[in-house]
Each structure stands twice: as C-alpha cells, then as structure tokens.
C-alpha cells in the first residue's frame, strides 16, 4: 500500500499545519463524497482486502498508527495503535464501532465532524475495519439527532453506490443519555441490551459486539486515522509536540467572543486557544478543561497550560474530550459545579450503589455550599464523599463527577471559605455558563 505525498494545505488557509480535519469545510455545508475526495484523495485501501498481501498491509497500517502516536480523542487518550493491535490479535473476526455519541453537553466537535465531514470519519471506519480484520462496522449516534443520522445514512449510501467500503456500515441509534455513550454501553446496546455500562472484564477489545473483539473509537480519532493512512506517521507528527503529536478538535465556550469548535495543534497553551476563539469577553477566573469529567484550573495556572494529555496531567488536570470553558469572574464556580454534578447525578445509570446514592449526596453537599453557605463543614463533607465514591462504580461516571468536584474545591477554595462565612456570593445569581440539557440553549 503506497502512501500518497502530502497534499497542499487548502488554498486560503495559511497557518502552519492547520487545518487538517477541517480542511475543505470553508462554506459550512456538508462535504459530499466528491469534495471529500478532491480535498484528501481517494480512500487508500487495497483492491483485495482479503489477500495475504493485504493482511500484511493491514499490519503495516497498524505500525504506522502506532508510530504516529495517535491517541483516542474521546477523552481517555488511549494509544490508538495499541488498541487496534490488541483487537487485531483477538480471536475471530472483529468489529469496529465509531463512537459519535457526544454525551458531554459542552462538546460539539463530534457532531460537527459527523455532519460536515462524514466521509473522513467513514474512511477511518473502513481503514480501522481493514486493519483489525473486521467484518462488521457501526457508527453510533444519539437517537433524536435525526438530521445528523440522516446525513450519515446519505453518506453511507453514496459510498455504497461508489463501492468504496468493503465492510458495510450500520448506523446505530443510542438513547441520548450521558452514560449511554460509554464504550461498554454502546456495545451492550448493539448487542440488543440496554444502553448501560457493563462490568469489565471482559474488555470490549477482547469480547464486545456479539462476543467478538471490538474496537470502539471516537469519530475524531477515526478521522485522524483516515489522514494518517494517506499521509503517514511523520506527516502526523509534524503538528503538535513530541509527547502529544497531531491536531485535535476542541470545543471552546463560556465567556469568549467566538465560542465554537476549533482545530488546534496539541500542546497549544489554553490561553492561546481562548484567543483563537476571540479572546475572553470578561476576565476569566478559571477554565474548565476536559468537560464535565474534567478539572477546573485557576485562570493564571490555566493560561499557559499546554492542551494535551501529558501537558494537562502535569498541572493536575485532564484533557478529556477537548472541552474548554472560560468562567468569568462574575460567575460562581461552586454554583456551576453544583449544577453540573446534579446533572451527572441525575444521569447515573443507577446500577451501582455508590454512584446511584453517592452522586446525589455529593450534589446536595455542593448545592449546600454554593447556595446556602455550607453550614461550616460542607467542604469536608464533599471531600469525604469524594473519597467514598471514587473508583467504586462499574464505569468511570462517578469518577468524573468526583474529579470535577474535587478540582472545584481546589480551584475555588477561597470562594468556599467565603461562602462558609458570608453565605452565597452574587455569582450564584448569574445566568449559568455551563450548559446542562434542559436548561436554556447556548448555541
């Protein structure tokens, strides 16, 4: 399988190595098959996917992905090459699942990619299926996103007519719950079970859909795969930093002039990303990094923090699914956190006691602190609950909530003490910054 020479950057865009995923999306409509192939070239799959030469090419593709350093863009940041390798090594024909269920309310990147550049994602699906020897492929989206699903179906149809995908792709609709977009929940849903997380072992890469080795990848990860297969691992590494190569889509919101989805090179400092999004409209007090499973960082610490998994880990935060929310000084971080944790508590699958009972208790304690001053011991109660809940669920849902709550206590420690002495601050009355479904739409 030959690798094509790097394509010229889309005319009209100049800066460095960007855009990559978002190249060819200038006019805001969906990139049809024609425009997609004009921008990126055809799907680089061998003509006879089942031949011995093709199997060797599949293994080489996984090598390339490993060398590229591509990591999952769905939040966990697991090395994609390693995941493909372990699925390919599993017993029997594999399954590929593209996770397009963007459960995080503050994230928009996956929906953008699926609605505007579906062929990039579908190329990634086809390539992943080729790499692991899959005979089935699925793209999972939330039920209720009918225009998105319809657009995807149309894209799949167009590819069927053109005879592009050796493995047929099925669109799966998953209930629009926060936990339903979790990896094991999607697999269980495809297996005709409820869209709820399951206990592991067995892990999905060993036994997933139909008991077969299943590769579940975020749609953005697969889009990157589609480009790596064309242009190679060295090309991929030209952007980003050595410890976090490539580009990523981030959703920037909060008090910035131009909230939206942006493609950035990994390792870009958070402050620079806020400036790309038009800059803060009000002086920020803190930045939420990583989404509702993420961490609050005080503005001074956040501004220079490099946006990448290792970069954010070094400042005690987490990249998550590339969500950046700027919290203005006039808002109350504790109130925002209390609302989000209440949402996360309501979204619990309710399967595990520590989560089903612990998260509501955590939400109560946070609300007490934010809106009632906390009766002096709210911060301790919150800390105790965090220690009690952490790690005791079947999935990482409760851990995300405890991480958010813990980082709020750290980032807004002074506010917590202020609330304790003087009651809720004026910020609690401000309109909410972090979107919670059911609240007013912010987009």
């Amino acid at each position, binding site marked *: 399988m030959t690798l094509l020479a790097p394509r010229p950057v889309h005319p009209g865009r100049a800066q460095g190595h960007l855009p990559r995923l978002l190249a060819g999306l200038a006019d805001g409509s969906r990139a049809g098959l024609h425009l997609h192939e004009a921008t990126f070239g055809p799907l680089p799959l061998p003509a006879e996917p089942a031949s011995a030469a093709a199997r060797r090419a599949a293994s080489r593709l996984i090598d390339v992905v490993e060398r590229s350093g591509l990591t999952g863009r769905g939040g966990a940041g697991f090395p994609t090459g390693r995941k493909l390798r372990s699925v390919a090594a599993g017993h029997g024909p594999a399954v590929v699942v593209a996770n397009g269920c963007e459960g995080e309310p503050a994230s928009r990147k996956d929906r953008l990619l699926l609605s505007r550049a579906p062929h990039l994602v579908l190329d990634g699906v086809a390539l992943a299926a080729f790499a692991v020897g899959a005979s089935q492929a699925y793209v999972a989206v939330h039920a209720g996103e009918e225009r998105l699903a319809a657009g995807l179906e149309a894209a799949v149809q167009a590819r069927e007519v053109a005879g592009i995908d050796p493995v047929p792709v099925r669109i799966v609709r998953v209930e629009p719950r926060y936990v339903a977009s979790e990896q094991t929940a999607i697999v269980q849903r495809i297996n005709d079970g409820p869209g*709820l997380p399951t206990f592991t072992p067995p892990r999905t890469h060993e036994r997933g859909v139909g008991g077969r080795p299943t590769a579940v990848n975020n749609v953005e990860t697969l889009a990157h795969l589609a480009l790596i297969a064309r242009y190679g691992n060295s090309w991929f590494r030209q952007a980003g930093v050595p410890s976090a190569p490539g580009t990523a889509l981030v959703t920037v919101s909060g008090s910035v002039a131009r909230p939206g989805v942006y493609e950035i090179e990994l390792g870009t400092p958070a402050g620079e990303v806020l400036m790309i999004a038009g800059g803060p409209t009000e002086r920020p007090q803190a930045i939420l990094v990583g989404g509702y499973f993420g961490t609050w960082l005080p503005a001074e610490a956040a501004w220079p923090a490099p946006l990448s998994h290792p970069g954010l880990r070094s400042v005690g935060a987490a990249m998550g699914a590339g969500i950046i929310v700027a919290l203005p000084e006039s808002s109350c971080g504790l109130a925002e956190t209390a609302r989000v944790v209440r949402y996360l508590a309501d979204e619990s*699958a*309710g*399967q595990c*006691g520590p989560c*089903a*009972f612990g998260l509501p208790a955590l939400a109560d304690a946070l609300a007490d602190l934010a809106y009632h001053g906390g009766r002096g011991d709210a911060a301790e109660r919150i800390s105790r609950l965090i220690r009690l809940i952490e790690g005791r669920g079947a999935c990482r849902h409760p851990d995300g909530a405890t991480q958010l709550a813990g980082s709020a206590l750290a980032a807004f420690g002074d506010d917590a003490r202020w609330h304790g002495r003087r009651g809720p601050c004026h910020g609690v009355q401000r309109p909410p910054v972090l979107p919670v479904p059911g609240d007013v739409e912010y987009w």
Partner: protein
Amino acid sequence: MSSFSHGPFLWYATRAAGLVTLVLLTASMALGILNAGRFRTRRWPRFLVQGLHRNLSLLALAFLALHIGTTVIDTYVSIGLPDALIPFLSPYKRFWLGLGALASDLMIVLAVTSVTRLHLGHRAWRLIHWAGYLCWPVAVMHGLGTGTDHGRAWMVGLTLGCVAAVAGAAAYRAARLLPARRLAR
C-alpha cells in the same frame, strides 16, 4: 421383616417423617422469605438467616428421603419409588400423592441448583428458585389430602401454624418491598 413391612411401624414412621419434613420446609420457607426481605437484627445477622435457611432445607431433604423411603418399603400400600417422584403416576390417591411427588421434585431441583449456584450463575439460579413459592403450598396440600390424620385437631392446628409462619414472613417481605431504592434493575 414381613411384620416390619406389614405392620403399623412404617406407617407411623412415614407419617412422622412427612410431618417433620413439612415443618422443616415451612421453617426454611419462612427464613428464605425473611432473607429476601433483608431481615436483620443484632442477634440474627443476615448470614445466620441465610445459613439456617440452607441447613434446614438440607435437613428437610433428609427427612423427605426418610418419608419417601418408608413409604416405598411399606408393602401395605404399593407405592414404588417412581410413584414417589413422578407426579400423578400412582393410582393410589392419584391427585394428593401426585402433589407430594411434585413437591419432592421441586425440593430436589431447588437443592441441586442451590448447591451448584456458583456454577449456574445468579440469574439462572434466581429464576429457578422462584419455584420455592410453588413447592411449599403443594407440600401443604399433599399433607392435608394424602395423610390419614386429616381432620384431627392437632393436624389442623399444625397446618395452620405452618401457614401462619409463612404468611407472617410474606407480610414482612411485602412491607419491605423497598420503594425508596433508586437502583435500576
């Protein structure tokens, strides 16, 4: 041997063993229902209720074996082993004896599946264990219909006592249906 197998000894033995089986089965049933209702006091931790339920069930099985054994050996009425285990096979008191065979089969199935619970897995075990709610009333009815002591005051009293015990446990269980729990199951 012949007077043994013809005389009244075996007849008394089978009636006695049957009654003891019924009492043990009742106690086991009541404890099982209490355990399902999460009954617990300082003197009665959960593992005690569960352990007693299990041991009384096994004891009930032992007395069931005695009850069946003495019946089969007794040549006064010809009830063979197949009649004791295959419901409604025997022409002698076909219906009431058949109930006994049914109850015996259920007791054996419950015991075997419980002993192999770890291999069976929780869901399959739970599904089969519901049969306990059928087994006990069938056993009670068998006792009332087959036995030659029905109508006697002490027999009626004993049966009522058994029913009261299970009804009481069931009432406790129903009250503890735990509506406040939010877990999705």
